[in-house]
Every structure is written in structure tokens, then in C-alpha cells.
């Protein structure tokens, strides 16, 4: 099985949930920007959550499926169309043999995730299939997809096959089928333009002027055009330290908000370096990374302070929800039809 890239789109890359275990050697994590959306799309086709899929940015690709393929599109709404039929997000979809998946206008967010049953079978490099663009390794030949790429799809598991069989029965004359099941709306992050993002204090929050700490939470920050998968550069009120200080570089993570000497914060994203030397004013709560990942250039972000305990509570609720979705899908697979 394979899928053929007829048009690559703006920036389409192979991503799984990231490359872990080698950060101490300076190897970045990479992986899906909106990991939630990739996880859900994988679950909906019966994959392991960590299977590799495609991260599609702003301008989507055109993809040809020679054989019947079970797919799911989640995350940002880039108007996916399968053989002239609009594809609903957050559902399981049968793409019949010889079908064409295209994308259109950006309706919400900026990154869509495409999962295929069996996963994109790109070579595993350092425990991951994620594309590490800067080092030119991982993913598909270490780069974003190009016209003519033929991506192998992994062998279908029993779960993949059961879901395909179940849905294929409901297919219409053109062979396309959309699942009746979908993801419960309350599990979804509240995707919106200009999101409010919850954050806990950063490790150096106390080093900032009191005024700066207050402004950081009360003003909005605009995402500059120089932003990318590595980090979002923000423009807004200048943030100042109480006194000038050189910090010894230390580990950072997804969602770390650091402030370089120009006082304009940078939020570190999926392709962040492993360590950083700028003072960290805040850390985005893990549950809201998906909102950030879907925020477009030029949008405004407002940060809201929450306690560590609240950030953890939100995390645990989200994870519980994902596990419930996983077992509900297993039930469907076992032949018990129901709502997810």
C-alpha cells in the first residue's frame, strides 16, 4: 500500500508524537505540533496513537490513494475534500481505491493531521519517524513532501481491518464512507482564532519586573511572521528583568515562554532546541499546546495564569478522555455499535 503526493502543499511533513530519548545528545523532539489531533486521528483509524501521519500546513496537498484506505483528518479545518465530497473532521473515513484527497480554504486553525490505517511507513530514525527538518533526517528523506513522493503505508493491523470492514459496509455507491461515530465535542480543545492560552509561572518568572509580569498576563501578544515549527515569536508589551543577568543554559520544553534581551517573548514549539539560555517567564499548560499549534501568523494570544495543580488537573482530564475514546473504539471494533 502506498499514497502518492500529486501536489505537496505549503509544508507537509511526516510526523509522529516525537523523538524521545536523545534530547541529552542535543537531538530535538520534533513531532506533531498539535499532538492531540494526531493522536485522535490515529485512534480513529485503529492505529497506535504514535503512528506516523502527515502534518499539513495552511495550503494542503493533493494525495492519491491507489487502493482503498481508511483515513481520518483531524485538527485544523483546511476544507478537506475526497473525490468532491467534503470530509468531516474527527471521523473515520473510507477512501475508495483510486480516490483523491484535496484541501481548500483555511476555515479554522492552520494544521490538519491525516492518519492512514497502518501509519505512514517512513524509516524509523532514532526511535521516531518524525521529520527533523534542520538536520535533514527522519520523516520522508528528512524533508517536507514533494510532488511525486510515494509514501508506503504500514501493514494493516486487526484493528485497522475490523474498522475498515465495518465502515465499508456503509459505503455509498462511490465507495466513500464517513463514520457515524465522532469525537465527543467536550474532549476537543476549544480551537479558536486568537486563543486564550493557560500558563503556569516559568522558572525565572520572579526575575522579571513586577510590571512586566502583570503586562504579560493582561496584554495580548501577536504571532510574528518569522514564527515556525521551532518557535512562535511574539510582539507586544516589552518584558524586562529586574536586573540584567546572564543565565546558564538549561533544558526547555514544548510551550516554554522565554524572553530574549529585546523583551519580546518566544514560545518554544515542536522543533525547539533542547536547551535554552533566555529567562523563562511562563510555561504553557500542556492541554493548551494544541490551541497554540493551531494559531495562525498574525493572530493574537492572551496568556492566563493558572496554578500547577490546575494545569495538571486539566492534563489528567484530557488524558482520561482520550483513554475513554480509545476503549469506545475498541468496543465498536468488537462489534458493539455505539456512540463514541
Amino acid at each position, binding site marked *: 500500500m502506498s499514497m502518492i503526493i500529486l501536489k505537496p502543499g505549503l509544508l507537509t511533513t511526516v510526523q509522529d508524537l516525537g523523538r524521545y530519548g536523545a534530547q541529552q545528545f542535543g537531538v530535538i523532539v520534533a513531532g506533531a505540533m498539535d499532538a492531540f489531533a494526531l493522536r485522535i486521528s490515529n485512534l480513529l483509524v485503529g492505529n497506535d496513537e504514535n503512528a506516523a501521519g502527515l502534518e499539513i500546513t495552511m495550503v494542503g496537498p493533493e494525495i492519491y490513494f491507489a487502493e482503498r484506505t481508511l483515513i481520518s483528518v483531524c485538527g485544523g479545518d483546511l476544507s478537506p475534500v475526497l473525490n468532491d465530497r467534503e470530509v468531516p473532521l474527527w471521523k473515520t473515513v473510507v477512501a475508495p481505491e483510486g480516490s483523491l484527497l484535496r484541501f481548500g480554504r483555511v476555515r479554522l486553525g492552520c494544521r490538519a493531521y491525516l492518519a492512514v490505517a497502518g501509519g505512514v511507513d517512513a524509516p524509523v530514525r532514532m526511535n521516531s519517524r518524525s521529520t527533523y527538518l534542520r538536520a535533514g533526517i527522519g520523516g520522508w528523506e528528512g524533508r517536507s513532501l514533494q510532488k511525486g513522493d510515494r509514501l508506503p503505508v504500514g501493514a494493516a493491523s486487526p484493528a485497522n481491518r475490523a474498522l475498515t470492514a465495518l465502515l465499508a459496509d456503509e459505503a455509498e455507491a462511490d465507495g466513500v464512507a464517513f463514520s457515524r461515530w465522532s469525537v465527543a465535542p467536550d474532549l476537543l480543545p476549544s480551537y479558536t482564532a486568537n486563543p486564550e492560552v493557560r500558563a503556569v509561572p516559568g522558572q525565572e518568572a520572579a526575575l522579571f519586573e513586577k510590571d512586566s509580569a502583570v503586562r504579560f498576563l493582561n496584554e495580548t501578544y501577536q504571532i510574528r511572521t518569522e514564527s515556525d515549527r521551532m518557535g512562535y515569536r511574539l510582539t507586544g508589551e516589552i518584558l524586562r528583568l529586574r536586573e540584567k543577568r546572564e543565565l546558564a*543554559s538549561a*533544558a526547555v520544553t514544548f510551550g516554554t515562554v522565554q524572553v530574549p534581551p529585546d523583551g519580546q517573548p518566544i514560545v518554544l514549539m515542536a522543533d525547539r532546541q533542547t*536547551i535554552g539560555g533566555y529567562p523563562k517567564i511562563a510555561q504553557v499548560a500542556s492541554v493548551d499546546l494544541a490551541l497554540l499549534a493551531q494559531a495562525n501568523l498574525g493572530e493574537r494570544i492572551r496568556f492566563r495564569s493558572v496554578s500547577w495543580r490546575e494545569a495538571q488537573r486539566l*492534563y489528567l482530564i484530557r488524558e*482520561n478522555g482520550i483513554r475513554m475514546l480509545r476503549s469506545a473504539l475498541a468496543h465498536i471494533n468488537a462489534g458493539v455499535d455505539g456512540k463514541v
Partner: protein
Amino acid sequence: MNEWSEKYGKYGVLEAKLLPLGDSAVTVQFGETICRQTHDRVRQLAEHLEGHRFAGMIEYVPAFLSVTVYFDPFEALAGLGDGADPSGGADPLALVAGWLGDQLAKLEDAPQRTPSVTEIPVCYGGELGPDLPEVAAAHGLSEEEVVEIHASADYLVYMLGFAPGFAYLGGLPKRIATPRRRTPRLSIPAGTVGIAGDQTGVYPIATPGGWQLIGRTPDPLFLPDAMPPALLRAGDIVRFRPISRAEFDRREAARR
């Protein structure tokens, strides 16, 4: 609200500060200044974590003053939390901090592993080290003297980062410390050895940069097909050995 945010304490023979990095990581910081003793503490904990893990622990990253441990809060809660209810005010950060405190209390007073010494062959000067004349002139030294000074020191790998396999080296003799170039180069080839202020290092992959370039090694520092994927690791000692252009070419040809 009485929640954990930062703990400073004595654990056995060690003093450390534990602070959260968001909801899924904890940093253990050993001191405020970069020095050999703090580095030894970092190494001790890193070595210990090689053999001791908790459920949900993903990995750890050593840095100049600290070790950061990344984990999955859901798994950590299940593993360390005695079946605590995920919805009922559970605090995985506190559980992980508690576990780390227990580990710190078990540590000995010195690192156990003898540091490995890695020799890195370098062809200095010429087209592979175009800034060598400038560095020499800046200090009133000959090119040969700069090479001799650079290659006679032992360098300590404080940590890796910035690029895959890039080592932050301590120990550059002050006599050849040189400020960065005013205009950074757009691309510096992999293997290039440079000086920036009181730091020296080797670029593992081609990147833009403002370092003073004094030579190049034919040996790869980033090894994406090996585990570990880097020639060096934190705590190692590095020595540079001058080689001729002929040897450089021979070694580089042998790699292909």
C-alpha cells in the same frame, strides 16, 4: 493555595533546588555558577537516572547546573500515586519531586563513572580554518602557537545541545579566547572547529554562525544511526589532535 512550586533542601550529602518546568517536567538545580563541582553533581544524578526510573519517566537532560526530568503525568500518577484518583486533586509533580528527592538522598559524594577521553583530529588553518590568521593576529601569536595552545588543553563536556551532538566545552585557554565575528556566516560546514568568546566547539551539522573558524575535523560528531547518536556525552573529556590536510582528506574519504 498550598501547592508545590519550588523546593530547596538538603538531600543526603547534596543540596539541590527542585522546580517544575510546566506540568510534565521537573528540574533539579545544584548551584548558581558553572563550575566543576556543580558539574559533578549533575553527572552524579544523570548517572543514577541511567539505572533508576519511575513509571512514566520519559528522559532526562543534563545542563550546566541542572538535570531536567521529563515525564507523562498520567503514567507517573499511576506508577507513583498508589492509585490516586486522576480527577481528585492529584499532584504528579509533587510525586515526581518526592521520588527525585529520594534518589538524591541515595547519591554518593562523587560521580562513579570515569570520564572517557575522546581525541578529535583537527586540520587547523588553511581553507578549513579561514579565521586562524585573524585569531592569531588578535593575540599577537603565530598560527602555530594558537594551534599548539588549542590542542594542548583538556576540555570538559558540560552538556550537549544547540545542535545534535554539539558539546559545550569548558577549558579554552584564555590566551586564545576571541570574540565572535561581527558578521555571522550563512553556512558553516559540519565538522568545523571554532572559537566564540571563551568557548570552543565543533559544529556537528552545517549551520549559520558567528564563530571564529580555526579548523575542521573529519570525524562525525552527530551519528543519527547509532545509539547514543553522538560522539560525545556530558562529562567526557575532549582533546584536539592536529592533523595534516593529507590525513584529513584520507580520513574523510574513508568515511564515504
